[in-house]
């Protein structure tokens, strides 16, 4: 070896040696998702993307969800509930500070809850706070919440991203510069491209393994595939193209996490529009649908069949899929009994997600087989909200209801299903007033049966959560008990 060559070889070796530990110690991550948050205030918008970036990372509430959907203490380390279930006394954790350095106290909790339930509040889930009568800051570490009526869901409600604790002085800029108490602080948002977070040094809890995290927004499924394959991103949360998942599964460089979401995907039915106002007709539709075919065809096999509006991973879930088993002959019979031996025509209005567009074509074919013709219209989300959701000008639609534990929407007669059953409404009221776990489970099961027996909607499947990640990334949530990409436990394998 000549001298210069030796030098090059030596420096190359040195370079490699210098780089190797740098790889092993990688402490940043780039996670992509399809939708960009419109702004960064989880208490002022329904967009799931806001929570995906911020929930548990930047913002925390009194309680929080774990990966399995359990509600555990967060900023409140403990609480006491009065005998009558009306007074909740929360003891806050010690040493919690906001990212601007100020201490998080009972006054901030009072401010956050009062802001969410105020007259002019634009909280997208205002009903979470409906039961609250007063919020008092007893001392800096004690908050007393008095309810107007008992609410068995109260602790659960406080775990939502819409109920996180915000810093009063940050409200003016919260939509672009969020200030929370979480393990990561907001660093930068390059609109249209990415949000950057860095580790918050003074976090009250266990410090996360990651020092920095970047959320990238890639809306096009093909681009998502390319970005993953090219190694530009480390993980893609809720990967948008299920057809590509087998390829990732077969590739040793990647892992595919399949979990469950809170998204009940249903064939929404306008219960006030003839002939769909006839329970027999709705029952016929339910039996005309072959769920498994929809799951295979629209979701490439990812999804769990459901027979009612309830998440199958929830302990109170009852499997009622048999009540609407695929049986075209029975469906035709039921239609004849209802007075429609030759079927009828209705509308099927579909929002943009592929579960709706692909699923819609399959369901239309299944309905046609029993004599029901559907006129399919593809709508954008904004149009869908206007035509279907607000104006209720539709016969059938397909939507995934992604809010956790949202069976209560069936008690709202003006909700777009237009399902008006006083018995169900009474049951929900009773449920809200019950705090005993066993009694609640029983009531939830009754509620599931009631809407299944009334065939309010066609119940299709629980939306699966599919995350693609590099093989050596650890600690990502497989499930999505709420829309969150919790990075607190994420790390790189040695």
């Amino acid at each position, binding site marked *: 070896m000549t001298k210069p060559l030796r030098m090059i070889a030596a420096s190359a070796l040195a370079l490699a040696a210098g780089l190797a530990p740098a790889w092993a110690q990688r402490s940043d991550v780039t996670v992509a998702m399809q939708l960009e948050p*419109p702004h960064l205030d989880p208490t002022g918008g329904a967009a799931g993307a806001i929570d995906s970036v911020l929930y548990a990372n930047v913002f925390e509430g009194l309680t929080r969800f774990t990966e399995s959907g359990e509600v555990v203490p967060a900023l409140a380390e403990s609480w006491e509930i009065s005998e009558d279930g009306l007074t909740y006394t929360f003891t806050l954790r010690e040493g919690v500070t906001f990212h601007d350095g100020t201490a998080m106290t009972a006054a901030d909790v009072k401010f956050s809850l009062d802001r969410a339930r105020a007259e002019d509040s634009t909280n997208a889930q205002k009903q979470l706070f409906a039961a609250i009568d007063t919020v008092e800051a007893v001392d800096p570490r004690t908050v007393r919440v008095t309810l107007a009526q008992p609410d068995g869901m109260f602790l659960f409600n406080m775990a939502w991203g819409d109920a996180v604790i915000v810093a009063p002085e940050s409200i003016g800029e919260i939509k672009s510069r969020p200030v929370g108490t979480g393990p990561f602080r907001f660093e930068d948002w390059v*609109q*249209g491209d990415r949000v950057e977070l860095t580790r918050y040094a003074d976090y009250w809890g266990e410090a996360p393994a990651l020092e920095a995290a970047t959320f990238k*927004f890639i809306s096009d499924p093909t681009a998502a595939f*390319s*970005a993953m394959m090219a190694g530009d991103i480390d993980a893609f949360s809720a990967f948008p193209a299920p057809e590509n998942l087998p390829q990732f599964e077969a590739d040793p460089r990647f892992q595919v996490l399949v979990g469950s979401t809170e998204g009940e995907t249903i064939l929404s039915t306008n219960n006030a529009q003839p002939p769909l106002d006839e329970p027999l007709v709705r029952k016929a539709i339910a039996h005309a649908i072959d769920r498994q075919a929809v799951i295979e065809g629209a979701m490439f096999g990812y999804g769990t069949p459901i027979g009612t509006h309830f998440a199958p991973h929830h302990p109170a879930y009852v499997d009622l899929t048999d009540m609407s088993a695929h049986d075209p002959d029975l469906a035709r019979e039921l239609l004849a009994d209802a007075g429609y031996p030759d079927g009828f025509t209705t509308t099927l209005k579909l929002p943009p997600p592929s579960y709706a567009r692909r699923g819609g074509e399959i369901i239309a074919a299944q309905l046609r087989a029993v004599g029901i013709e559907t006129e399919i219209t593809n709508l*954008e989300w*904004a149009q869908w909200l*206007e035509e279907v959701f607000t104006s209720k000008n539709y016969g059938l639609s397909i939507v995934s209801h992604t809010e956790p534990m949202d069976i209560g929407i069936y008690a709202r007669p003006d909700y777009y299903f237009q399902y008006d059953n006083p018995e169900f409404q009474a049951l929900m009221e009773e449920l809200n007033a019950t705090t005993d776990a066993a009694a609640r489970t029983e009531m939830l099961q009754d509620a599931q049966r009631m809407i299944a027996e009334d065939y309010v909607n066609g119940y299709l499947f629980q939306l699966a959560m599919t995350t693609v990640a590099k093989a050596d990334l650890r600690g990502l949530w497989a499930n999505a008990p709420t829309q969150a990409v919790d990075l607190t436990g994420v790390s790189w394998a040695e």
Partner: protein
Amino acid sequence: MLRYTLKRLISLGVSLAVASLVIFLVVEVAPGDPAAFMLGINAEPEAVAALRAELGLDVPKWQRYLDWVGGMATGDFGTSYTYRTTVAEMIAERLQVSLPLALCALALSTALAFPAGIYAAARRGRAGDLAVMGATQLGIAVPNFWFAMMLVLLFSITLGWFGAGGFPGWEAGLWPGLKALTLPAVALALPQAAILARVMRSSLIEIMGEDFMRTARAKGLTRRQALWRHGVRNALIPVLTIIGLQFAFLLAGAIIIEQVFYLPGLGRLIFQSISARDLIVVESVVMLLVFAVIVVNFLVDLAYAAVDPRLRRRT
């Protein structure tokens, strides 16, 4: 030249006024409420109403139109409903991607098209011409998003020379920024270059049949000299028109390419705003693009006059 410029300026003003009205009407007529979109399907009607009031959506439409036009006249494009930042700021940020991208693509397409067009015209009917024509035919026929995906497949996934998309921002440095724009610029430029080369070729061929070209040859210029001194300059008019149109297209029409490479450009801003019914952003961005197209056309008109003195005298 002054009268010509003045006349063009007046027509520019009228076009802008008409455009603002049309844009506002079209955008407002489309169904969909931005407040309902933002609050989703669990929201209570009162929260939606509160948000509508907060966004100023509860005032009559004509008043919103006047506010919008009045604001734009003073340089205030309004505030985005969803992002809650000023539209001017958002546009400025997106232009940092879209403008360099459009310019790169335009420079690239011109650099490819001129030599190719001139070469083909000079060798009309021979093998070189046929090769160029075949290649441009292919360039026009291939959809640019497909071509973009092929580029990603080859250069990002297989070779790993470029990222598959995204934009690090100019603050990351000139080189990383340009690197991120390379593949999108190539994908945008090739079809444009193909069109431009064909226009250049046919324009030149037409010019070469003109009397003055024969005169030029008669006074002793070689074919090549005549082509360069008299042909190319005269052939430029239709080519300039196309370049003007292409620039406007590249600025706004890169939506699909921006989608494929997930670049935070103007096209994607429009796309996102339309689906979120962020009306004020859609209106202002479209208005800005109309403005750009009209101004570019105005400049092209002036450029004609510069290239062709007859146009100046005629008006």
